[in-house]
Every structure is written in structure tokens, then in C-alpha cells.
């Protein structure tokens, strides 16, 4: 508490707000991975640049037309060129920014989570929503969430049953279902 007081004693009027913003940012960042380095900034700028260039090239192919009669590609081209310019700017000035986050071991959890989403998307039209959703819940509870087998089983089953009742009986929304 006393640390915070020291940081918030008003030196000049604007300082309070700036210190406050830093304080708030610190609170929100406490549980996040550490900031990534310049590599993250450079790579993201290059990706943005690639998006802009691709967009511009493709848009040019759709025909720019004239200002009097804009073609299909004019607006996307202008927007893409804007992306290109901004990405180049970011490449120049962005290297020292601290707003990226490092990929950590926890990021593997994100990959697993993503895989479950893809799995459900693939399986849903084939075997209905019940089993894929159940599998997703099991993965998220047991492996991503560190829950016990008992807790996993109860919550997964309860969730699937609840959604079954809600969507098929409550809201009467058609979903591919097996049971």
C-alpha cells in the first residue's frame, strides 16, 4: 500500500493520471506472461506488411477504375496501401515496444484448446454435437483445467445434457444430434 502511495503523490497535475494508468496496467498485467522481445514486434510488423502487400496486389487485379468511376479494387487497394505504409512505420518505430507477450509453455494449452475447437467443428456434422462437446469438455476440464476425474465427469455430462435440453427442447433450434 505504501509503495502505491509513493508512486501516486502528485508531482504535477498530469502525473497523477499517468501514474494511475501505469498502476492499472500493472494490475492487469500481473497474471500474464512476460513481455516478448523485439522479435515479436518485427515479425508482427512483417506479417502486417505481407497482408497489406497481398491485399494491394489482389485488389489491383480487380481493377482500380478511375476516381470518377471507381472499380471494384479501388477501395481495397487504398486500404491495403494504408496497411503497407503503417506496417513500414511500425517496423521503424516499433522495435522497442513492450506490449507483446512471450509464448510460454502455457501457450501449448492454447494449441490444445484450438485443436478441440477444430475437432468439434469437424465431428459435429458427422456424429452430432453430443460426443464432440463431451470430448471438448473432458479435455478442457481434465487436461487444461487440472480438475479431478470425478469433477470432469460430472461437469461434462451435466453440460452436454443441459445443452441437449436447452437447444432441442427449450429453444427448438435444430442441431445435428446423435441421441
Amino acid at each position: 500500500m505504501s509503495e502505491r502511495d509513493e508512486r501516486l503523490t502528485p508531482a504535477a497535475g498530469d502525473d497523477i493520471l499517468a501514474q494511475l494508468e501505469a498502476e492499472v496496467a500493472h494490475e492487469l498485467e500481473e497474471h500474464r506472461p512476460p513481455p516478448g522481445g523485439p522479435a515479436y514486434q518485427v515479425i508482427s510488423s512483417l506479417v502486417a506488411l505481407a497482408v497489406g502487400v497481398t491485399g494491394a496486389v489482389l485488389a489491383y487485379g480487380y481493377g482500380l477504375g478511375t476516381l470518377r468511376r471507381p472499380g471494384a479494387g479501388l477501395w481495397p487497394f487504398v486500404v491495403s496501401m494504408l496497411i503497407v505504409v503503417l506496417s513500414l512505420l511500425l517496423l521503424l518505430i516499433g522495435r522497442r515496444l513492450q506490449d507483446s507477450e512471450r509464448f510460454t509453455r502455457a501457450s501449448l494449452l492454447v494449441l490444445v484448446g484450438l485443436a478441440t475447437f477444430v475437432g468439434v467443428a469437424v465431428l459435429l456434422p458427422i456424429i452430432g454435437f453430443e460426443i464432440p462437446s463431451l470430448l471438448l469438455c473432458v479435455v478442457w476440464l481434465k487436461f487444461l483445467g487440472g480438475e479431478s476425474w470425478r469433477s470432469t465427469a460430472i461437469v461434462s455430462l451435466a453440460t452436454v445434457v443441459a445443452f441437449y435440453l436447452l437447444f432441442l427442447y427449450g429453444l427448438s433450434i435444430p442441431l445435428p444430434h446423435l441421441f
Partner: protein
Amino acid sequence: MTILIGYIPTPPGEAALGAGLAEAARSGDDVVILNSPRRGSYVDVALVDDGSAGGLLARAEEQGVTARVDHAEHGADIVDAFTTLVRESDARLVVIGLRRRSSVGKLVMGSNAQRLLLELDVPVLCVKPAR
């Protein structure tokens, strides 16, 4: 040697604390009070705040027992927290409180107490609150 007391702010926990402190006073051991919250929760009602922890230590002092409170977190299995702390504090006895439960209740909801009884290597004293 130390006595490890598993404490939560409920009647069984209070019973365990009472019995554990009495035993420690009799044998002159130190006490480690394990008040373990579940990792990853926002709020755990089993956790006691610093003020209440101070109260627990004061009760121990009254009986002439040196105690400390440990807030080691546990994951899905509370037995791990106990095993680790038993090893670290060289405990000779673990004291826990038991809830009165029907056999069906235990079957459905599981029993931490049973797992502790079966898996801990040191003697476990199970205390029930007064009826």
C-alpha cells in the same frame, strides 16, 4: 517433531485444531496448521484470512504450543499438499476433521479423508465434532 493439523473454518476443522493442539501440548511438539486453498479458484471459503490465522496462532500460544500457518495450495488432489508438507516439516502425526456422512454420500462425492487415511505414511488422527 511436528504435528500437522489440517484446518478449515468449519466444525470438523475446529475439532481437529482442538485435538491437535491438545496432543501437541501434551507431547511438546510444534504444530503446523495447513489451511490449503484450491489452486485456480478466485474464492475459496476454506481459506482463512490473516486476521483469523492470527487468532489460530493465539490459541496455540495459550496452550504453550509453537505453531505456524501454512497456505500451500493444492490442485485436484489435496493429498499431495499433505504429503509434501509432512515431508517438509518432518511431521509425526496428521490430525484432520471428519464430516459425518452417509455411505452413499461418500460414494457419490468422494472422500478426501479416506484418501488421506489410505495414502499418508504417518499416523492420521481423525476427529469428529461434538454431536
